[in-house]
């Protein structure tokens, strides 16, 4: 028998594949980073030997943000959108526990997030291949492990945080405002670490910080795939569980069903 969360996930995937506006927005956000990196590579300040380093630095920030932004609109729609349209109440009245509802939605949001991240990384690889092919060849293994073991788990964490924050919001507008604030986290962490790289330490397995540390360490000659990278990926993915369970508790609250109009 099909599990309840996979039923919810499949419905959300089918539903949001038909939401062309959200998909276009996600694709535009994902490709914004590669487009800016390409423009910088053509600018007078982007010329010279430092150009590949500048490109990699910018790329890491945009990829970090993309891991969070990619499916943000969809996360808003599946949680606060359902609440606003009152379709959440009939859903919660089915024999499916809130936990399974949340996990199904998270699976769908993560899938769209991974799609957006793939767009972003593919765009950056194309720009690097065009503007700095030697850098791409030299760091191909590092970039692949960074994307798969670092950024992909970050998408899972980003999706769960977005589900939680959007679940707390009564309207899509409220969720959009709250999530814009949440988005500052990867932007600030990314920008800070580009300019002030931190040495290795326990924080190198902290989600977001760790992803940047992996890239920096790799560029300084550390092995592309190491225990550190694997542990970081696992820690990041495991951290997604907390916000998901918190979101399930939110769905169990009386006020979320918004049934009473007191």
């Amino acid at each position, binding site marked *: 028998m*099909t599990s309840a969360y996979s*039923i919810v996930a499949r419905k959300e995937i089918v*539903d949001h594949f038909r939401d062309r506006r959200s998909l276009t927005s996600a694709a535009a956000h994902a490709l914004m980073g590669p487009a800016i990196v390409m423009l910088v590579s053509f600018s007078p300040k982007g010329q010279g030997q430092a150009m590949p380093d500048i490109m990699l630095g910018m790329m890491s920030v945009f990829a970090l943000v993309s891991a969070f932004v990619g499916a943000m609109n969809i996360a808003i729609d599946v949680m606060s959108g359902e609440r606003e349209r009152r379709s959440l*109440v*009939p*859903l919660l009245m*089915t024999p499916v526990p809130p936990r399974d509802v949340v996990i199904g939605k998270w699976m769908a949001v993560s899938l769209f997030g991974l799609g957006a991240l793939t767009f972003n990384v593919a765009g950056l690889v194309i720009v690097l291949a065009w503007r700095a092919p030697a850098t791409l060849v030299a760091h191909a293994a590092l970039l692949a492990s960074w994307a798969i073991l670092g950024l992909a788990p970050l998408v899972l964490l980003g999706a769960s945080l977005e589900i939680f924050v959007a679940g707390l919001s009564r309207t899509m507008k409220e969720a959009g405002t709250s999530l814009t604030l949440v988005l500052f986290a990867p932007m600030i962490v990314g920008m800070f670490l580009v300019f002030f790289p931190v040495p290795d330490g326990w924080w190198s397995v902290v989600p977001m910080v760790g992803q940047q540390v992996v890239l920096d360490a790799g560029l300084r000659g550390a092995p592309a795939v190491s225990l550190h990278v694997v542990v970081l990926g696992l820690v990041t993915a495991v951290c997604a569980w907390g916000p998901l369970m918190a979101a399930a508790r939110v769905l169990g609250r009386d006020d979320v*069903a918004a*049934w*009473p109009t007191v």
Partner: protein
Amino acid sequence: MIEVEGLYKRYGAVPAVDGVSFVAPDGKVTGLVGANGAGKTTTLGMICGVVKPDAGTIRIDGAASATSIDTRRRVGVLHDHKGLYSRLTARENIRYFGQLHGLSGAALEDRVQAVVSLLALGSIADRPAAGFSQGERMKVALARALVHEPGNLLLDEPTNGLDIPTVRTLRTLLADLRARGTCIVFSSHVLEEVSALCDTVVMLARGRVVAAGRPGEICRGAGSASLDDAFMRLSNGEGGSE
């Protein structure tokens, strides 16, 4: 059958439901009547398990705890806000809820087709719900509530915003479900509709039951010629606190 006993629910200092008890038997339509804010919707919310009561018991087909998964399988709910997924077709909306209620394969498709036929949804079954009229939305939401063949059906203000032909269709359908033995609980503040549809009426005012019985009995008890007058007299012309 739905049995509600001593149900209480407060929101802060406001008592939304204050000791409500009633029994809704199988094969009957029980009307929950009251002004806006009288506690009808909160009571229905507690029966279907999305609002937790502060006190009291709810038994559905003899089983306690409306929040349990098994109990929810016995109930179909038509909420005031229809809450359809606008990018999905009517059939996909219905199928999704059938799956959530544990149906799959040929049994699921048979049930989906059965409710599509029952509610005469054939012409719109494969159209996205985005363009549906109020009546069409209500029918799809009702089909969704019936897809798992629940023995108990809760309807919250089902005729809100519907045109006369759709209301008549709904009445016919409810009469049919009643004849099949379904327990129907129907909340409304339109007393004419309640008189036409309900076997038993539970009148609520300020979260309390002020009268219960057959519409004629309530009228006689209140010394009124109509349910409207009886309601005004029994509730002292007051609504609720919502």
